[in-house]
């Protein structure tokens, strides 16, 4: 924000006195330019391309304005010559939504006890445990997902259990595997913000609740939970929104069936060579993301919590 002011108001700033510890807003300029080049410009390109036509040959776009990519999202010109409402992409978006929602709920349920537990350890143990939670970040997500695939593969230590029991049940290459992959990857993003809230929690509040006649579960529900709500909301935002656009888990664990929106988008830039449609799907995904950010913001504003989003 500050940096955008620099661009427009820099003459006025020259006379302003700088307080100690303040740096010149001009120092932020390279970063702003970098962000504009890597975020704003690609989004603008995506937006513009979504209104163009596919190239006659090769990849890319042809500069013919059309809304057909957007029409294509919801209307299908069927092979028998009729047109109909196209449920395919709505279904894929719905799948993405459901998988992300399940991921969010499961990571939340898993994170609450572990985050509370870490928050109540001695400081040295806390630091160690937080480092342990962040340990997966040290390893490439691709390699971790490969590792998970080995684990839940039909011959893996976990996936193979059904096989050895003689059951015809498979985890790998199912939506379940996709969701397991999402939970696995996003769990730390739920634990850390909840932990950060829980660590600041004043346990005398819990004692006060206990003292005023509330049993343990009531204390947790009515006092602890509302107090760590900012962390929970941050966690939900940090898990749900990226999960919605995730690609790798569905691709590597879901059996390559275009189960999530990002996989369909990737197909448009690869096999299908339909960039405008890929861009239209991306614009839709961006729109959904903004919508969910606004919803989460709305919830957090209503509850009066300080949650930093976007």
């Amino acid at each position, binding site marked *: 924000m500050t940096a955008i002011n620099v661009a427009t108001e820099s003459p006025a700033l020259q006379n302003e006195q700088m307080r100690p510890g303040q740096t010149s807003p001009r120092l932020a300029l390279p970063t702003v330019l970098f962000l504009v080049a890597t975020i704003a410009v690609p989004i603008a390109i995506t937006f513009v391309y979504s209104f163009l036509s596919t190239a006659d040959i090769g990849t890319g776009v042809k500069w013919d304005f059309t809304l057909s990519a957007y029409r294509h999202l919801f209307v299908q010109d069927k092979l028998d010559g009729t047109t109909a409402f196209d449920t395919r992409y709505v279904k894929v978006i719905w799948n993405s939504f459901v998988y992300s929602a399940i991921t969010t709920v499961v990571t939340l349920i898993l994170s609450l006890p572990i985050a509370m537990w870490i928050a109540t350890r001695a400081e040295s143990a806390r630091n160690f445990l937080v480092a342990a939670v962040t340990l997966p970040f040290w390893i490439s997500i691709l390699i971790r997902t490969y590792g998970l695939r080995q684990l839940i593969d039909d011959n893996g230590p976990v996936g193979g259990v059904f096989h050895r029991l003689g059951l015809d049940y498979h985890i790998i290459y199912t939506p379940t595997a996709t969701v397991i992959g999402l939970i696995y990857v996003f769990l730390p993003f739920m634990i850390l913000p909840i932990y950060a809230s829980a660590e600041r929690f004043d346990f005398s509040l819990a*004692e*006060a*609740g*206990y*003292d*005023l*006649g509330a*049993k343990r579960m009531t204390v947790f529900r009515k006092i602890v939970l509302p*107090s760590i*709500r900012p962390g929970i909301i941050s966690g939900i935002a940090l898990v749900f929104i990226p999960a919605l656009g995730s690609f790798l888990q569905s691709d590597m664990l879901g059996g390559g069936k275009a189960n999530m929106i990002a996989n369909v988008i990737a197909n448009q830039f690869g096999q299908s060579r339909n960039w405008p449609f890929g861009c239209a799907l991306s614009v839709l995904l961006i729109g959904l993301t903004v919508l969910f950010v606004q919803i989460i913001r709305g919830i957090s504003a209503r509850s009066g919590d300080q949650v930093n989003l976007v």
Partner: protein
Amino acid sequence: MTSSYLAISNIKKSFNTPEGGTVHALDDVTLDIQSGEFFVMLGPSGCGKTTLLRSIAGLEYPDSGVITLDGQRIDDIPAYNRPVNTVFQSYALFPHMTVAQNIAFGLEMEKLDKAEITSRVGLALEQVKLAGYEKRKSSQLSGGQAQRVALARALAKKPKVLLLDEPLSALDLKLRRGMQIELKRLQQETGITFVFVTHDQEEAMSMGDRIAVFNSGKVVQLDTPREIYRRPVNSFVADFIGETNLLDGVAGTDGITLPGGGMLLRSQVAEDCAIPDSGAITVAIRPEDFEITDTHGAITGTVRDSIFTGDTVRIHVTVTPEVEVAVSLPSYGARIPDRGEKVSLSPSGNSARTVAS
């Protein structure tokens, strides 16, 4: 005074320190607190007073001993079922709730009906002079207001005993004085038994009906403020309660030889204090009990400095290179000696006391 209401018998509690040692936070404490009493537990930090308060509240479980309240044993009842409530040092107001919700919380736990809760919340706020603050968020309150809400929250539960854990320590001096008076008033109005923990002896003196002085996990003296001030049982109490000059003397048949060679006559020592015929003995004389005598005082020395504090003048008198005494003189009336002047001091009447060390 009625018979014992809150009876604490032989409570022991020890903690393991990180270094591997054991600390006896409570070392066989027995106390009887009477109904409707404003009872103060006083002592330096780490003396065990807060641990005892938390044991009464049920937030801490003693290793052994029994606590009964109104004839019923309570030490094995969980905190949420004990008919006592606590005002925490940090207030512990629920930040996500309004003032009214904070106060109503404990009443909702009792499953009272809505109308009853509303009226009790209103009454509690009136008691602490915060009527009209129902809708405020607790983050919008000043320290003094938060303190009152914490008080109202506990009082609304109509506890048999209200426990207050250094509730005024975070307030500035002026506010603290005001709250002291108000707490005393509230206690008298409601008739609830207050157990008040503090490390501030002045606060203890001004509020307590009785004071238990704690040191190292034990109750060293239990009495009225006046008695504790006038008759400290040992040098710790004498020193901790108010200001006292503790002087190492040697007993003889005539009296006690004090540092610097002066003689404290037996007649200058309180009648209830026994003086042996020989041996070392500690004498306690409060600064305001000294008067300047012409000659042959019990203590002779040189005025090092003199400080005017309004109603009194404090002077420090160097007796020997190691011993100095503080003297408090009324600012009007008696002559104030100058710096460097040689003075002779004696306790007025029989105000000197001997104390166990």
